[in-house]
């Protein structure tokens, strides 16, 4: 017998494998998370991975104090700023003598100025000089009774004995019947905090790209008339006013009440009275609502009476005439099922069919892709869901599978194209028509447009964690040409909209992404560069840049014109769209923002 049979050693060694082995077998799904969390950690400013993030936090505190100073009644005492400014502080004048009027109409005047070299003598000096400069800035907006300002630090680099930052400055000054908005880029030089002093000090501010908009009629173009429209409806106090946080503490996630708040809107004339109405999706356990518009512009709520009061977690809906009978039917995307609701006139809506199309459904977009005269449906699927599960107890966004790799994830859920075969029958034709190609991404939204002017609708799909799709319609079959057309836009795609922004007759494309100040700061750091490959750095930097405007070149390709057009900074963007807000014929852009606002003061 071999002497290597001392039983305890081998037995323990062999047994010690067992628990680990079992774990590995039973938790296969979680093993993909490492890589993603490694990358996301780099975005997370709460983890002090980098020294500069500490500086950023402190400089941010100084900037907050300065911004707060802007909001105080004027004139401001220079002492207010003394603690943050180096004794030798210098700053470009906040008001430029030479500005160019780039736009003017009944609503707005827009002026711009670039940075001429300011002679030293004209620069503001010390705390008094800074306060005086502010006085001149605000002095032009007489009667200002409300100021809101934000100084956002989005790039930081250490230099000898200090550091430099790029800061985005936005100031809104409102007066009775007027308002002015001042935007600028500040290039700031700081000294490091002295020992025992938590705050760094500003040494120098160079100001670039000053742009101002003065509203000429009314303090803002839009006014919030919410209560007058909705105030008399039953759901107003109890369902419209409280936020999702109210419900996520009271209604169980097991019935589909989740924290994300991804619930959409659809406008259409539900009752055929010539006034457009609004359908509102909501979380699981809260009924979707149908607000019918009255002659006076207010609404009555009729979801229950008309059979559209779905309690299932609903993400999006579309009003469509699915059977060409002249009224608007409704398609509702709920977590478990896509619902086809038929407009039966005065008796309301009938559920004609419901089926499971994708896991984690988000936006819907309809078009007649096969040009047979009826409308087909495209539904975006985000995560792939957990294996072997079905039904509402699985959440949105809580996908059991994490995106891998983070900047180019290809393990998401499938999207579906549903062909309308008449009589409210729909057939999943995703694979047969070629839309199965690159169809495992985390898709949030899609929009149809005939971008190549050949008469059939093409489809752009915006994907989180990576590249987007542009499916060209070739006689009812699709080919993903995103790469050739240069519209992959590798970033965190949240939504897409088509519009002709430069009025050349071709449809351009705006994609909303996530602008991350933290991502911008961290990914441009030398230490981030040392820890990652160049390719990864480029991709991750690109992911944090923000929104993208693609100009349709007319030859099947697009050009990224986001930066020169000035439309990247959409923050943590969700919806985006073209709309001519001031009737001047040019399509303006609007973006909704913000991920999770809670009642705390800080931000992750």
């Amino acid at each position, binding site marked *: 017998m071999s002497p290597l049979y001392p039983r305890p050693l081998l037995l323990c060694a062999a047994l010690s494998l067992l628990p680990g082995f079992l774990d590995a077998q039973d938790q296969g799904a979680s093993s993909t998370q490492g890589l993603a969390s490694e990358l996301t950690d780099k975005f997370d400013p709460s983890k002090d991975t980098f020294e500069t993030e500490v500086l950023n936090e402190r400089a941010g505190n100084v900037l907050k104090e300065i911004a707060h100073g802007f909001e105080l009644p004027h004139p401001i005492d220079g002492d207010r700023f003394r603690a943050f400014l180096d004794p030798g502080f210098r700053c470009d004048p906040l008001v430029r003598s030479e500005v160019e009027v780039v736009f003017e109409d009944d609503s707005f005047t827009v002026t711009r100025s670039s940075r001429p070299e300011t002679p030293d003598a004209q620069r503001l000096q010390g705390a008094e000089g800074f306060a005086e400069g502010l006085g001149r800035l605000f002095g032009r907006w007489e009667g200002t009774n409300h100021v809101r300002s934000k100084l956002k630090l989005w790039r930081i680099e250490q230099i000898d004995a200090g550091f430099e930052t790029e800061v985005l400055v936005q100031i809104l000054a409102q007066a009775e019947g007027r308002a002015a908005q001042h935007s600028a880029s500040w290039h700031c030089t700081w000294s490091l905090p002295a020992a025992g002093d938590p705050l760094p000090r500003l040494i120098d501010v160079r100001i670039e790209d000053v742009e101002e908009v003065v509203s000429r009629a009314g303090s803002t173009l839009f006014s919030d008339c919410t209560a007058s429209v909705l105030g008399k409806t039953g759901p107003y106090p109890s369902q419209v006013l409280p936020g999702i946080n109210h419900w996520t503490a*009271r209604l169980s996630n097991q019935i589909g009440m989740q924290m994300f708040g*991804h619930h959409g809107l659809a406008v259409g004339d539900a009752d055929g009275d010539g006034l457009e109405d609004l359908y509102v999706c909501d979380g699981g356990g809260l009924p979707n609502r149908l607000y019918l518009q009255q002659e006076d512009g207010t609404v009555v709520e009729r979801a229950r009476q008309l059979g559209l009061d779905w309690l299932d977690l609903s993400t999006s809906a579309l009003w469509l005439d699915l059977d060409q009978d002249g009224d608007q039917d409704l398609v509702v995307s709920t977590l478990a099922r896509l619902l086809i609701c038929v407009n039966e006139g005065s008796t309301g809506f009938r559920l004609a069919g419901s089926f499971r199309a994708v896991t984690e459904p988000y*936006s819907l977009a309809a078009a007649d892709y096969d040009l047979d005269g009826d409308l087909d449906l495209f539904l975006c699927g985000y995560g792939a869901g957990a294996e072997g599960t079905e039904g509402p107890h699985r959440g949105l966004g809580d996908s059991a599978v994490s995106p891998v790799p983070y900047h180019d994830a290809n393990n998401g859920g499938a999207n579906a194209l549903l062909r309308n075969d008449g009589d409210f029958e729909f057939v999943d034709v995703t694979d047969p028509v070629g839309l199965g190609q690159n169809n495992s991404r985390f898709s949030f939204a899609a929009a149809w447009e005939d971008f190549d002017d050949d008469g059939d609708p093409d489809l752009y799909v915006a994907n989180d964690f990576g590249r987007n799709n542009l499916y060209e319609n070739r006689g009812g079959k699709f080919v993903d040409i995103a790469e050739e057309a240069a519209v992959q836009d590798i970033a965190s795609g949240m939504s897409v909209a088509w519009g002709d922004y430069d009025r050349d007759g071709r449809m351009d494309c705006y994609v909303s992404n996530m602008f991350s100040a933290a991502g911008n700061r961290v990914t441009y750091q030398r230490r981030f560069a040392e820890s990652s490959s160049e390719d990864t750095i480029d991709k991750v930097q690109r992911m944090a840049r923000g929104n993208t405007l693609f100009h349709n070149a007319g030859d099947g390709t697009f050009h990224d014109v986001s930066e020169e057009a000035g439309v990247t900074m959409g923050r943590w963007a969700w919806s985006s769209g073209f709309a001519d807000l001031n009737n001047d014929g040019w399509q303006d852009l609007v973006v909704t923002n913000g991920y999770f606002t809670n009642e705390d003061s800080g931000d992750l």
Partner: protein
Amino acid sequence: MRMVRDGLSWSGHERNCAFLNHGGTFTAISGVSGLDFDDDGRSQVFVDWDGDGDLDCWNANRTGPRLRFLRNDLPAGGARGFCSLELRGTRSNRDAIGARVELELEDGSRSVQSVQAGSGFLSQSSRILHFGLGAEGIRAVRVRWPGGEREAFSGVSPGGRYLLVEGTGRAQVRAARPRALALAPSPPEPPRASDAARIVLPLPVELPRLEARTFDGDPLEIPQGKRPLLINFWASWCAPCVAELGSFTRAQDQLQGRLDILALSVDGLGADAGEPADAQRILEGLDFPFATGVATVDLLERLEVLQETLFDRRVPFVVPFSLLIDPDSRLAVIVRGPLAVEALLESASLCAEPDGERLARSLPFPGSWALEPLQNGGLSQALSEGFRERFPDEAARYLLAALEEMESEKARRTSEGESLRGLSARELSLRSDLAGLYSGMGELARSVEQYERVIDLQPLNPKALKNQGLVLASLGDFERAALNFERVLRIDERDPSAHSAYGNLLLLMRKPERARQRFARALELDPDTADAHAGMGRALGALGRYAPARAAFLRALELDPGDEATRASLATLERLQQRAKERR
């Protein structure tokens, strides 16, 4: 996500953006547009809601208010013009989705828009096209219908609303409606947030183990019985708690016979001042007529996990806090904050209602489900996932409950002649989970039993066979374990981990040569597995082939430097080598 659930913000307080397009370049007008709310904005749609010739906006938000109506106050009249075109397909789809309209203006410029259904994020704006005209007149209107057919339309003038029907060539005027609008600036005022709530659960929930004590420190039996039970958590330093106990005391004639009450003091469990003795004095002062005791940290932790699993938003545990337990010992209602006697009685009567009624009763508004949630034991399974990390015993109990629910669902479907589709897949996943959980808890015999059930359901399930084999090996039942691995390898001979696992077992069975063959095959299939190299080292060592054994251990450690067991094996091996050398 965990921190967001706890109440931190993440890219919060961000304001919506608007960019004014002038000649193809943009200027941020977020502030002066009046669209820049710092709600967590999601969907946004545009429509000329009030019919005054400009685009108004509806927003849907995550935070309150969930909806905003933002009216465009563009000055009416003046130089500014617009026209509004609704398209109707006859050969094309009736909504004319995909049709494109080109307006040629007097100055030669053009504007192009398409009819769309779904754009942006979760948004459908009006499909009536709204064209701003500036000060220009309209020279021509051309429509390209889906499919590419082109049609010119006459009769469109600035300021008008028209219907363009495919094939008619002439725009129909939509008569202006005289409307007495009742819209005015009226920003909504969301209510102040409060954590107080009476939460009826959508299904009664099996309780976790609730460990409480008497004031003397003895274990306290939680009363279980024919009546609903209110467990009320309170503290001596909490005035609303004491007031609540007082109200229960005064209402004792109303309450007794209809429900039981157990008041558990949390004094001494947190950082707050207060000791059980303080609580006891207050109870004596009140002459409190119901059962009393003290809560334990274990109990509070289990309640925390329970709530965290049920709700996306985590609410800190604050007294007074109550649980209403139904006569079947299941949790029916959670009350955060004080509970009035009337509300208590109403909650108690709810316990008498059938389970199927609870879902509707748990919701704040009536409505319809397309697919009713919480069927098939999903809730217990979710709770088991929630408890798995901190309380595996609890997780196992919830899995058993889920299995029971599944069995009764099966019985129901069988008696009603419904299809049993999906149930066996579900049983499979529940039992696999349970088996894994038991083995982690050291309940090996139970684990083997659950794997057995899984294998009964799916005889060719290699994962279950392999895992059961490992558990059997731990139990010392080597022969059965070996049979499992033989079966696994018959199903998939190319699974290196199965070869390795079998090799380890063969080592335990003192069959080093056969073990060596398994490891060799494992390494053939995947040469970079640390486990297989380590096993190979042991097998070779057992066979007395020290030099190649040493090489195998070193390779294993190269692949997995943190493997202490292999390091120990290597040390033993080196001692043996040394001894052998000395002997020689």
